[in-house]
């Protein structure tokens, strides 16, 4: 699933006030609406992933170190069933099925790298792959930050131009 698609899906659920408990009070039409919140969470995730990937690069020569990654879209993909809806987590047997779930729980999870050990020291970090992932993530972060910036700029225009 592409990053853009992930944005769209999260955006859809954020706008219904389902993604984050503390944001339920935020009405979709208020000053800082769902898009801002969604972008905020994306920035959080990408910053966190950057830290994890730098850990991998830093430990490229540490014997026995196992590479890690954060997967956002993969976890999301697993949570979405074939009809394109998110199953709700049931806390009781007789709960009725509802289309949404708490997305909070499926992000920011550390996933051990899937790469097989191909080095004698038991380290699983592949420097080329890590650097690629890192620069990709960095680009995504810059894109997201740019989007937040533009969003705020739009707000500012709306505030200052309507007189």
């Amino acid at each position, binding site marked *: 699933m592409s990053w853009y698609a992930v944005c769209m899906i999260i955006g859809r659920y954020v706008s219904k006030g389902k993604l984050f408990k503390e944001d339920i009070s935020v009405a979709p039409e208020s000053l800082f609406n769902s898009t801002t919140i969604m972008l905020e969470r994306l920035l959080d995730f990408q910053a966190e992933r950057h830290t994890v990937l730098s850990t991998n690069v*830093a430990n490229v020569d540490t014997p026995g170190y196992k590479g890690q990654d954060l997967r956002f879209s993969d976890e999301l993909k697993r949570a979405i069933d074939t009809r394109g809806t998110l199953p709700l987590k049931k806390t009781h047997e007789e709960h009725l099925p509802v289309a949404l779930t708490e997305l909070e729980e499926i992000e920011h999870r550390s996933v051990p790298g899937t790469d097989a050990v191909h080095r004698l020291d038991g380290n699983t970090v592949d420097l080329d792959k890590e650097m690629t992932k890192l620069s990709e993530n960095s680009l995504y972060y810059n894109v997201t930050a740019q989007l937040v910036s533009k969003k705020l700029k739009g707000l500012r225009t709306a505030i200052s131009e309507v007189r």
Partner: protein
Amino acid sequence: MDFLTALKISSSALSAERLRMDVISSNLANVNTTRTPGGGPYRRQEVVFASEPVTNSFDELLASEQEKYLKRVEVVDIAVDRRPPKLVYDPRHPDANAQGYVGMPDINVIEEMVNMLSATRSYEANVAVINATKSMVNKTLEIGR
């Protein structure tokens, strides 16, 4: 804050790789050294890297579950190689034994050069990460400008 953690991790790797480089240059410089303060020829040394949790005592109190898998690099030991000295026949050498053999350090120059290249590349990779972090921080500061 996240980016400071990323910088801390990358800089720990930089200093570890730098120390590794120091040890490699020491090995290369002493490739023919036959006298040491401890007696006998120079013994080859090697750094031992280990990943340590990135927290300090105050951070530990605040550390969330997510931060527990973040590891910095630390040089835990500079190990002395157990390879025995290489015996070279040179009766005129001041440190030659009764049979005319001198104990020379068993240092393979090619091995050291390969290690040196590896250390350089790892160092460069971490510098690249630090630059990426810096660009991300700058981008963050531009939000709302």
